[in-house]
């Protein structure tokens, strides 16, 4: 079975109550599908950032087999 690895960081991780999910890949799967499934159809927080395979993404891109998707709040390093 091919999977999508899903990661949550910082405040999002705490709100989800877990750091990772694994979701079965299906053709046509988008970032919003992953979020809806993980959150129980909660609306995506407006300021939330998304990375696919460790690159920032905008919008709602379609995913490929084996992708890693991460959801996190605005960054506060430095």
């Amino acid at each position, binding site marked *: 079975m091919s999977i999508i690895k899903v990661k949550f960081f910082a405040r999002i991780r705490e709100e989800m109550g877990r750091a990772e999910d694994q979701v079965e890949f299906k053709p046509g799967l988008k970032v919003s599908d992953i979020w809806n499934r993980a959150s129980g159809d909660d609306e995506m927080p407006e300021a939330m950032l998304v990375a696919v395979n460790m690159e920032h993404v905008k919008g709602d891109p379609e995913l490929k087999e084996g992708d890693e998707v*991460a959801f996190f*709040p605005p*960054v*506060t*390093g430095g």
Partner: protein
Amino acid sequence: MRVELRPAPFDAVAEVGDYRAAGGSPGKSGATSIFIGTMRDFNEGEEVGAMTLEHYPGMTEKHLKEICEHAAGQWAVHDILLLHRTGDIEVGEDIVLVATWAAHRGDAIDATRFIIEDLKHRAPFWKKETVSDGERWVDRNTSGYSAAD
């Protein structure tokens, strides 16, 4: 170029000296530009006792390296040193060090400024502060100027 995450405290000034001493080509760079970010004991009007810095293992390192590579392509810098803390941080400890070397000051200063600003806007780190009534996530970074904060 050296880009590292540091889970333990480091002395940013000493790190610059050590890196420069090991650099091997004295006389090449007429300019060294250094930015050091240090943990304050206040934020958003409250006293802060300590902080935890979370990151995204893999993406954070990749992103920091990309920022430095971009700066090296944009300005005529000879070398870049970027160190960033992770984990539990106490007041007064250094959080980030950006040092760049170039023939002339403009390239060094501009590259340093670009690296720290891009890092603050895009590198995946998240601060959680310990304040008097518990812990809180920092929601956003400040603009960098007191008057605009």
